[in-house]
């Protein structure tokens, strides 16, 4: 039973779908899973699901999920779990009622503010942006930001995790390529924590996996999920259907389909290992009908985030989605408005994790100055979520009486002792008088952020030599296996 405080914390500030709407999305998702089913291109997964009473059409690799099996499996996923920092001291508790903010994954480009050029991301760039994200006070944990082009494609996941553990102390939202990738990730985590048992007790990273919309699980993703569950790793399953292309153009239809994909994958994971922590993630988005490309910055993206938050609450699972995503490319008003729209909707609706900090251009390009701007946006959102405190001290009747008509409150002790907690303070936003702002060069926020960036330097302490060596041994061994002909 949650206490009063927990109930209050879990109450969203923004709601969209009524309890009946949520129930309907749930039952319609179950119908899709039973009647249409998921195509799963992984033989083990078919065995596991058949063994638990799912009807499998082997010719089409199509799994029809019995509704009771789905609801019973989803109910086995824990309502809360924790990730821990590299030194094990900081805990991030993922559950309904908390909100967290993070970067995003899978960028292939980096914009260099000094030269104004966008280029492919190399390993050293990934190390640098990881350090930068680590230094942002509003970023709660680190989502591995990029796929470096100078690392081999087959073992890129090992490089990503190795670079991440060396350059951030924050918990890591990570991915893995297939069962061997999962085992290598565990080996890297074990090297950092000191033992397999220590990694089990204090998880350092998750596995970020996805479905293949519409209604498919490919061999690698399904194989990774199965091995991840066997290894007891927390798993984020993240369908990203595109309304109008890989999902119905109607938002409700896309939500139902994404929900079905997610419930199907959670069912598989829980059948492999009941109690595997999962994060209810959706990157539902829509097609830009002008170009045939994707859009992730518009109001429907914000509506999808609210729906994800609400359906996750329906199942009482921690949730995740793109909260700081934008279509725009520059650090300009468009990107700011897109990000604020999405993160505000997501956070007020109670999405546990909003991802996307530091990204522009959908999820393609890292823009380092934008990370500083996003840090400021997140700080504002946190203040907004704290709401208005109503108690004897905050209602301030004593002070109102004491100051009286025509007086001023500025010199009151009540002001001095409460203003820091009541009022929000910018680090990057400009509030100076015009004359001062002008005298300092009349700079916009992008310029100020770029200048801060120039003054910034990496500070994350390196791993010990032994750990560093053990981590890279795992990477090299994986490369060796790939190079060897089978």
């Amino acid at each position, binding site marked *: 039973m949650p206490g009063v405080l927990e109930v209050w914390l879990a109450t969203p500030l923004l709601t969209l779908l009524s309890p009946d709407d949520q129930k309907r999305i749930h039952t319609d998702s179950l119908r899709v899973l039973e009647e249409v089913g998921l195509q799963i291109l992984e033989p083990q997964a078919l065995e596991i699901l058949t063994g638990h009473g799912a009807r499998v059409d082997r010719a089409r690799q199509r799994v029809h999920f019995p509704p009771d099996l789905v609801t019973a499996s989803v109910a086995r996923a824990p309502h809360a779990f924790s990730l821990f920092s590299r030194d094990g001291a900081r805990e991030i508790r993922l559950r309904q009622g908390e909100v967290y903010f993070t970067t995003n994954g899978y960028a292939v480009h980096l914009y260099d503010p000094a030269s104004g050029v966008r280029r492919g991301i190399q390993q050293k760039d990934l190390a640098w942006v990881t350090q930068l994200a680590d230094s942002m006070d509003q970023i709660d944990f680190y989502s591995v930001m990029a796929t470096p082009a100078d690392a081999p494609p087959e073992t890129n996941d090992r490089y990503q995790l190795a670079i991440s553990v060396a350059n951030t102390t924050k918990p890591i939202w990570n991915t893995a390529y297939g069962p061997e990738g999962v085992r290598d990730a565990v080996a890297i985590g074990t090297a950092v924590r000191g033992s397999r048992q220590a990694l089990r007790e204090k998880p350092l990273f998750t596995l970020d996996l996805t479905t293949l919309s519409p209604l498919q699980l490919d061999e690698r993703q399904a194989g990774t999920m199965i091995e991840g569950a066997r290894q007891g790793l927390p798993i984020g399953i993240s369908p990203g259907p595109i309304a109008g292309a890989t999902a119905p153009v109607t938002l409700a239809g896309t939500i139902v389909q994404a929900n079905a994909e997610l419930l199907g994958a959670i069912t598989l994971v829980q059948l492999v290992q009941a109690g595997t922590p999962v994060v209810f993630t959706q990157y539902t988005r829509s097609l830009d009908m002008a170009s045939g490309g994707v859009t992730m910055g518009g109001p429907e993206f914000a509506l999808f985030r609210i729906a994800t938050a609400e359906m996750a609450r329906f199942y009482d699972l921690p949730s995740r989605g793109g909260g700081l995503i934008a279509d725009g490319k520059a650090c300009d008003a468009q990107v700011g408005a897109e990000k604020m729209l999405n993160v505000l909707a997501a956070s007020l609706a109670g999405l546990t994790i909003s991802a996307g900090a530091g990204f522009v251009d959908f999820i393609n390009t890292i823009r380092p100055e934008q990370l500083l701007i996003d840090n400021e946006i997140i700080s504002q959102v946190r203040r907004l979520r704290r709401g208005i405190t109503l108690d004897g001290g905050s209602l301030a009747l004593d002070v109102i009486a004491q100051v009286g008509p025509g007086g*001023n409150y*500025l*010199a009151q*002790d009540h*002001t*001095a002792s409460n*203003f*820091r907690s009541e009022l929000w*303070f910018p680090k990057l936003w400009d509030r*100076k*008088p*015009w*004359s*001062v702002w002008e*005298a300092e060069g009349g700079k916009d926020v992008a310029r100020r952020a770029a200048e801060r960036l120039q003054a910034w330097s990496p500070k994350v302490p390196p791993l010990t030599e032994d750990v560093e060596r053990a981590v890279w041994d795992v990477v090299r061994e994986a490369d060796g296996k790939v190079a060897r002909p089978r």
Partner: protein
Amino acid sequence: MHELLKTVYDDVINGDRPAVEAGVRAAMEAGQPVGSILSEALIGAMKEVGERFERQDFYVPEMLVAARAMQAGLTILKPHLVQAGVPAAGKVVIGTVKGDLHDIGKSLVGMMMEGAGFEVIDLGTDVGPEKFGEAVRTHKPQLVGLSALLTTTMQNMKATLEALEDLGVRDQVKVMVGGAPVTDVFAKEIGADGYAPDASRAVTLAKSLL
């Protein structure tokens, strides 16, 4: 800095008024020179407060409670300073100009000026040009500070400067102006000697004008 002075210094920064009063008395009883208590502990602390404010480590309310704590210490010290012949850093007459009832910004400047060791004569709000003139004649300050919050009342800064001219006292004082709508350019246009955008920078300006 002597340990007793350092305590007062820290208490001023923390805005702990009773502690500053007790600390100043303790320092005097221990035989610390009143000039040192003033310059090292009180003015030194307010200088640090001003720097913190400019770095945005401190905000207006914290600057105010520190200034109030400093004033409390100064009140105890004052008779002894006169006796010991310790001069003030300078004398300044301040006020919000005619038609304008806004008090906060001007008072803040006054407190910070006191914190820097100035003797401050605060004429209050809605102060007519002739009243500023009289005050200059009576108190013989080196500085006059004019405040206005409204675009409509800032024109009265010009009228005040003209009144000082008419009374023949304009060249005896430096005039500084400030307030939300006031700019550097406006200050030059009306013939003021300086403009500061906030209370801490007003102190720096005042020192540079002496």
